[in-house]
């Protein structure tokens, strides 16, 4: 298979081995508005692609043609789709995973994914291939390298999650409704938490990595060694608090904290002691001389008050309910609305209104 750039290749129109294909123009009897100014190479390749699709041909040269188009326009989903159908037609009926055609395809995809990191099709094609090769482990390494170039790439992260859930199982050995068992390789998950740690150590504000942590720890079943959920909860709370203390104004970390508490039905008030000093100006709270590992203090360079902590404390108080606590929450929201987070003034006022209505309901019920 050719890996040269399209510029080095003669046009299909000039190639004797393509003489038997009739190229098809895109628009025949109309003069379209809003045309795209195609290059000669692109027009040539896509004309021949339409010709091939019309014939329904699925041969090795179709792989060459679709690769050519994909290199010029990686979002050409029809070329990808037809390429996949052609591959299926060319693959042997047994020992698919060790077929040289498939191996060559995987190698090519390693190259193209790096070139076209932001394209849906590049990543979806990998999924289709790994469903054939059933070799997910090398994919995890590949993804890690991909994320070095683009640490928040949406497709890359969701591909990783799909791999883990598909080949690593979803907690207990999942049998499907027809009694079949997937090839589950729980070992895929070994090192996944370390991987998240590495990503967050590089950038503690990387929300994709925080989301991945949630997927790994809470979203996709329970892994071996993590059956003690109390212990896992404690570990995660310690982890997220430590990270908040490094850089408090980090909505990703606070959202993770909220997510964990909500998921485990732990009251927000369980971490109120931790959050409180972050919600007020420096010095408003006496910082203990003893280092409290449970409740790490804001770093010396932290800019306080931190709006995420203020919001969190207001939620703590609102949930506790009662007049006094509601009033404390209202005070916090008022401070957010008028001073610390003025862009969301409407929302904080909405929260005040909701809390007052809830309080009224509590009183009526009492």
């Amino acid at each position, binding site marked *: 298979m050719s890996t040269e750039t399209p510029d080095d290749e003669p046009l299909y129109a000039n190639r004797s081995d393509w003489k038997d294909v009739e190229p098809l123009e895109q628009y025949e009897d109309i003069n379209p*508005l809003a045309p795209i100014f195609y290059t000669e190479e692109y027009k040539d390749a896509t004309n021949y692609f339409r010709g091939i699709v019309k014939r329904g041909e699925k041969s090795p040269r179709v792989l060459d043609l679709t690769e050519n188009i994909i290199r010029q326009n990686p979002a050409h*989903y029809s070329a990808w789709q037809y390429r996949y159908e052609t591959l299926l037609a060319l693959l042997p009926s047994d020992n698919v995973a060790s077929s040289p055609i498939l191996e060559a395809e995987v190698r090519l995809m390693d190259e193209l994914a790096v070139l076209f990191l932001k394209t849906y099709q590049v990543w979806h094609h990998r999924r289709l291939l790994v469903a054939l090769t059933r070799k997910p482990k090398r994919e995890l390494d590949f993804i890690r390298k991909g994320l070095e170039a683009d640490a928040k790439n949406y497709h890359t992260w969701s591909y990783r999650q799909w791999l883990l859930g598909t080949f690593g199982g979803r907690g207990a050995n999942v049998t499907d409704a027809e009694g079949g068992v997937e090839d589950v390789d729980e070992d895929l998950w070994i090192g996944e938490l370390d991987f998240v740690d590495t990503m967050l150590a590089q950038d503690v504000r990387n929300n994709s990595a925080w989301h991945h942590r949630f997927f790994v720890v809470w979203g996709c079943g329970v892994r071996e060694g993590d059956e003690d959920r109390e212990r896992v909860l404690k570990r995660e709370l310690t982890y997220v608090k430590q990270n908040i203390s490094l850089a408090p104004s980090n909505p990703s970390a606070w959202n993770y904290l909220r997510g964990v508490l909500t998921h485990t039905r732990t009251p927000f008030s369980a971490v109120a002691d931790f959050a409180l000093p972050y919600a007020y100006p420096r010095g408003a709270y006496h910082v203990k001389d003893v280092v409290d590992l449970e409740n790490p203090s804001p770093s010396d360079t932290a800019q306080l008050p931190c709006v995420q902590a203020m919001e969190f404390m207001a939620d703590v108080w609102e949930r506790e309910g009662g007049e006094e606590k509601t009033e404390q929450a209202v005070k916090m929201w008022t401070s957010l609305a008028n001073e610390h987070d003025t862009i969301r003034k409407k929302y904080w006022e909405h929260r005040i209104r909701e809390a007052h209505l809830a*309080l009224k309901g509590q009183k009526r019920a009492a």
Partner: protein
Amino acid sequence: MAPRPTPTDGFPTLTSRSQAETEEVLLKHLPEPGTKTEPVLQKNSHMQFLVRNLVQGFPARYISQDASQPWLMFWTVQAFSILQVALDEGNKQRIIDKVMAWQHPEGGFGGGPGQSAHLLPTYAAVCTLAIVGRPGPRGGWDQIDREKMYQFFMKLKQKDGSFLVAHHSEVDVRGIYCLLTVATILDLMTPELVEGTAAFIASCQTYEGGFASSSHPSYSLSGALLPSPAPRPPLGEAHGGYTFCALASWILLQSYIAQSKHKPTIDVKNLLRWLVQMQGTEAELGGFKGRTNKLVDGCYSWWCGGAFALLEALGVGGIQNAESDEVPIDSGTSDGVWDDVDGGLSISYLELRNWLTDALEGLYNRKALQEYILYAGQHPAGGLRDKPPKNADAYHTLYCLSGLSSAQHHVFPSTLRKHQVLESWKPSGKPGEETRKHIFSDLLSWTEEEGGSHIVGGAANRLNATHPLTNLTMTHTEAMAAHFYGQEVSTRARSSGSRNPKA
């Protein structure tokens, strides 16, 4: 006073560095303090940008969009509609002819002639026809092969209620939004088509409150369904584009959710929280971002900003959702419901009025969003953009304008209007009549509140309102839907939203 930059806590990372750089650039686009002139929407230069794309065409770098030709067309003609510009009949016909060249012989539309059918271009093609098409020969509308389109949709359906965007392609909520919008307008909705889809959408909501592209398939590689409760975690983090699509899908499915036995649920409060958090601060000129800790981008003015109107259909925000027994809407006296509350919680009538005003103005900062688009979103040479110093493009031009329009106007699902449409329904005798009737009247219930517009920069910046679900104008949405449901659009009663009685 200059806006406060986002805190870095003395702990810089890649994210905080690019955040700081962006804020620095954005702040340069604010007018000098003390400037009295209002920001101007450069309608003429945006028009010229659009006309250039339509008539002269797109430069070679748009080859990357060759599989999105229906989108290029939709972005362009819908931008005209929002700018209150209608095309002449000759150009309309040329566009219809081009769109019809994308229809696939086996149903649906592709990204160009000879390309495979795909849910995304199907939405863009049908919506383009809503704008430029008409019934009758060569009008486009009656040349849509609805039966084959329905079959195409059913072939893409997965066991967990989701849909592939095209054969052998990915599942994601953009495709589902596109499918449901088209099926709603073209009267293709059936219980079989959407069975399980609402539960799939619900499974895409993440712990942050927004929605992800999809969730883990609840079937194995061999295709068999996994027994519930196999975990169905979202794949990918909460994201503005997917959140809009998921929320709009959720609303388009309401008629079916109401009938279903095991009602799936979403966390609306957490969704609202996430949406308001997506609005950037004053240092980001109040633009929206698409994910936590990412940068603001003009297109999320629509995907996130536009989602607030959708929330009103779920009972969040807006005057219809103010609890009428709690809040004395029409009472002019101050001896209201709060007088029995003692202590610091007594609330004056004036405060109540303020709350009502807040509810009407929405739950995000509409003024700031308009300023972001006007100051930073407009490219000096015409067209709109992600953020400076980027170039304008067709996509950002439409979604900045749609977002600006939705920040200007208050469009809400009016119960009054819904009843009016229900009452004028002409029975068709087709199966599923009751549900179809509700789907149609829900779609047409969206109403622009008269006197509810707040236009930064004054009336000269006014844009047409768009339908919060379809992102077509109300007129285009209603005319096309009425055609396919065999109904007539009844004239609207002149009423303002604030006088709209609760059903």
